[in-house]
Structures are given as structure tokens and as C-alpha cells.
């Protein structure tokens, strides 16, 4: 296993664990305000300090991890659930009108500045975690569709696919039974990358107030709250920022590590 894979797995696992533990236990309750103890620097009782309402920042980070992971994960899920079948369909109908339509549609979504559209969607349909998921998820669709088609096209030329066709299998069955298993690794790697982009996008949307709404904790919101306090209580801005940075870094390293690890050709080359 490469160093990337180990560090990436460790960082990602850390945040997933924090999020999972938050369902059962957090060091402090984040819904009760404790104004007398606001803006405390890290100490024994509040390991990462408290925010402007006296809420424990570590507890907020744990709850925020939950929001980030949920939003990014579902957004990747939307991208995969719609993008992969579209890509498989385009590859199966390669060269036909349907293929052309799917790919042009992809190009079109790609051409949109995703952040602007995400802002538009959340502004119109109301700021909420669900709308943030949809806004981020839409832009994951063409990523997976294009990648799937690109990976599936050379597979359709291979002998084992020809054999399957000779056996009388339909294009749909071949796509599911033979093409899909052969591109799974690629999808896992890309899924990791899109997951990390989703975390960043969620943070940006919540920062400008268009993501998860209070009292739901979110890293981007914590940063927005901290903005005016940065001069008197820098830790309120530093902690959530590092949480985002480490989580995204971890996922990127995990993606890189997985790509190398899952691709036998690179593995052999390294040995």
C-alpha cells in the first residue's frame, strides 16, 4: 500500500468516525447556548474551544462532518445513479443519435459555471441541505456519464464482449454483466474525487448561507459565523477550515492511492 493510500484512508476514516460517533455522543450538546462561556480558547473542557454562542466547537465539527458527508455522498450518488447508466447507454449505442444527444447534453451541463447555477438553484428553491445536494449532484452527472462512456467504448471492441454477443446477450445485459464490472474501479476512484469536490462545494454554499440552515451544524456556516470574529477569536475560523482542508486532502489522497492500487499495470510498474 502506498503512503497516499494510508494517509488518505486514515484522514477519511477519522472524519467518518467523528460523524458516526456524533449520532451517539458528542462532548457537549450543541443546541443549548452557553453565552457566558462564549469564544473560549481550547481548554480541558472544550478541547477546540467554543464559538460565539458558547457552543463546543469539537461537537459542532462532529455534527458538521455529518452534514458534509451526507450532502457530498448523496450528491455523488445522484451523479453515479444517473451518469453511469447514461454513459453505458451512450457506449452501447455508440455513433447513433442517442449517443450524440447524451454527449451533447453532457457538454452543455459542463459549459455551465456550476457554482453560479448552484447559487441560482438554492436561491430559487430555498436554501437547504436537500437543495444543495441537488445543485451539486446535477453537475456530477456529466462527469460520470463521460467517464463511463470513455471507459466502456474500448471494452465494446474486446473479444469477450464479442463472445457475449455471439451468445445472444442483449446490449443491456452486456452493459450490466460485462462492461460495468470492468469499469467499477474507475468509478470508485472518480467517486472519491467527486466526493471531495462535493465537500468543498457544500462548504462554499453553506458559507454564503445557501446550504444547510441552522440549527443544523455545517462547516461552511461555522466559517461564515467566524468571519466577523476572526480578529478576536481566530480559532473559530481556523478549526472548521482545517476540518475541510484535512477531509478534502484525505479524500484526494485516498483517490490517488486507490487509483494506483486498483490499477494492476501501475502496481507492476512500481515493483
Amino acid at each position, binding site marked *: 500500500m502506498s503512503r497516499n493510500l494510508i494517509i488518505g484512508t486514515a484522514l477519511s476514516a477519522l472524519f467518518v468516525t467523528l460523524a458516526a460517533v456524533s449520532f451517539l455522543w458528542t462532548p457537549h450538546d450543541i443546541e443549548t447556548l452557553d453565552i457566558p462561556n462564549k469564544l473560549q480558547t481550547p481548554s480541558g473542557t472544550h478541547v477546540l474551544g467554543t464559538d460565539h454562542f458558547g457552543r463546543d466547537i469539537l461537537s459542532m465539527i462532529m455534527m458538521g462532518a455529518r452534514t458534509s458527508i451526507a450532502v457530498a455522498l448523496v450528491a455523488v450518488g445522484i451523479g453515479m445513479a444517473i451518469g453511469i447508466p447514461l454513459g453505458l447507454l451512450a457506449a452501447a449505442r455508440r455513433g447513433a443519435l442517442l449517443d450524440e444527444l447524451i454527449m*451533447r447534453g453532457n*457538454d*452543455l451541463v459542463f*459549459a*455551465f*459555471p*456550476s*457554482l*453560479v*447555477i448552484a*447559487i*441560482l*438553484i438554492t*436561491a*430559487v*428553491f*430555498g436554501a437547504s441541505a436537500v437543495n444543495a445536494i441537488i445543485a451539486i449532484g446535477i453537475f456530477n452527472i456529466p462527469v460520470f456519464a463521460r467517464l463511463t462512456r470513455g471507459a466502456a467504448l474500448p471494452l465494446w471492441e474486446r473479444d469477450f464482449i464479442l463472445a457475449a454477443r455471439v451468445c445472444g446477450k442483449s446490449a443491456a445485459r452486456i452493459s450490466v454483466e460485462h462492461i460495468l464490472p470492468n469499469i467499477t474501479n474507475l468509478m470508485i476512484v472518480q467517486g472519491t474525487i467527486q466526493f*471531495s469536490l462535493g465537500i*468543498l462545494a457544500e*462548504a*462554499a454554499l453553506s*458559507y*454564503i448561507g445557501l446550504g444547510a440552515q441552522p440549527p443544523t451544524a455545517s462547516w*461552511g456556516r461555522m*466559517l461564515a459565523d*467566524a*468571519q466577523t470574529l*476572526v*480578529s478576536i477569536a*481566530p480559532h473559530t*475560523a*481556523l478549526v*472548521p*477550515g482545517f476540518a*475541510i*482542508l*484535512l477531509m*478534502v*486532502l484525505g479524500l*484526494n*489522497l485516498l483517490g490517488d492511492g486507490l487509483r494506483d492500487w486498483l490499477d494492476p499495470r501501475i502496481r507492476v510498474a512500481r515493483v
Partner: protein
Amino acid sequence: MIRYALGRLTSLVISLFVASLVIFAVIEVIPGDPAAFMLGVNARPDTIAALRAEMGLDQSVVTRYFDWVTGLLRGDFGQSWTYKTPVAELIADRIWVSLPLAIYALILSTLIAFPAGIYAASHRGGPGDITIMGATQLGVAVPNFWFAMILVLIFAINLRWFSAGGFPGWDNPFQAVKSLTLPAIALALPQAAILARVMRSSLLDMLGEDFIRTARAKGLTRRQALWKHAVRNALIPVLTIIGLQFSFLLAGGIIIEQVFFLPGLGRLIFQSISARDLIVVESVVMLLVFTVIVVNFAVDIAYAAVDPRLRAKA
């Protein structure tokens, strides 16, 4: 070349058409009647109806879409409901913040990424390469608005070199550029990280090519082969990424403008959204999308102009 350009032009027009449909449709389904919103809860129904008529809301959807698009084509973006001034004027005021910011960031990102990428590729595997690649990993993972806050904390609050936000206007160009510096750095750094990685891998591909070996065999030094042959060829994919980055920078500026309280297009969008001034939102978003699509088109054409293989394929 002309056939290729015409093909791209057709898809440009289709993209813009679909984009305008999508933006119009999204704005159409916005919950709440803008007229009722503007007049408040105590408004009489006939007052609301009168305002609706004045705003053109009583006309059919098709008519309104048609009016909007033909207006855009004539450069008439309509009249803002809250500001009572033409939207084009509002945009013209603010574009002098957003556009320079994006260009400034693009220049910074290129200035950082080129040397870093070239150095990393030509010293592959060395400590410099490993450091630069490590730094780019951090660069792509850092949320730029948070990085912006850290810059404010260090350079505005502690060192007092820059102001923490606001924009003094272009009357004093030095002050104007100075106030855009921190925002531009915050925008540029994550993009520079991506660009440096592309530059490095593109250059590494080139350094493995036969023509570099030929150049070396002809007696060129490593340095000469690198600068005369490899870098020039490696720039082609890098230029594409720069073109794409421009749109990221323009759109990404929306959030950075919030951090620094810059009166750019981003703030205009947010203010208009909260005031339900839909015509402004619609037009600004369309303008951003238009810019992005046109820039991408220009990059495609430039790419084909320098790389004949691409023309042949199309």
C-alpha cells in the same frame, strides 16, 4: 478550419439558447409573487395587479421569454425593479470589480504555476518536485473563501498591509489594485495548484517524446531542449486549462466578493435574490454563463488553430 469553427459556432449558439431557457425556467418557478413581495403583506389586490402589469408579469410566459431574449440581444437587460435603473447600468458598474479581479487572479495563478510546474517536471523525483507536488495537494484541498479569511487575518488584521475589505473605486488605480490583491491571491492559489499539476504532467509527457531525444542527440543541452522544444509543446494543454479556469475565477469571485465585501457581480446577485429582483438575477447569471461559454468556445478555436490534428478529427 472553417468547417470546424462553424461546427463549434453552431454548438455555441445551441448552448446559449438552452442556457437562456434553463435560466428563464428556473426563475419562472421561483416561489412567491415578486409584485406581492415588493408591496408587502398589507397591499391591496388591485395595487398588486397594477404593479404586475407594470412589471409585465401579466403577460404569457412565452411573450416574456421572447421579450427578455430579444432585449438581451439588443443589449437591453431590462429595468431593475428595486433599483429603478437599467440592469445594464448596474452590471456595468460592478463588472469593473469582478472582471479585473478574475483577470488579476488568472495572471497570478499563471505566474505561480508556470515556474512551479516547469521546475517540478525538470527535477522529477527530487526534493523540489516532492515539495511542489505536496503544496499542490494542499492547494487543491483548501477552500478559497477560508484561505481568504486567513489572508485577512494575517495581512490585514495583524500586519495591516492591506485593508480587510471594500473597494475604493478606480479613481486611484494603485489603491484599487491593492484592494483587489488579497482577493486575487485567494482566488488564484487553488487554481495555481491545479495549473502547476497540469503543467508538470504535460511537460513530463513531452520530455519522454522522441523529438526531445532527437534534439538532445543533435547536441542541445538538457536546458535548451527543455525550453526550446518541450515547454512550447507542453503549453498547448495548459492553455486549455487556463481558458477553463477563467470561468472558475469569474464564478468563484462571487464567493470571494462576499468575504472582502467587494461591490461586484456576486454581491449584486445576492442583493437581487433577497430583494426578489428577478430580472437582475436572470440577466447577471445569463451574462456569466454567456461569458463562460464564449471563453470556452474561443479556447476551442485557439486550440484548433495551433493543433492541426484536432481540426482533422472534427
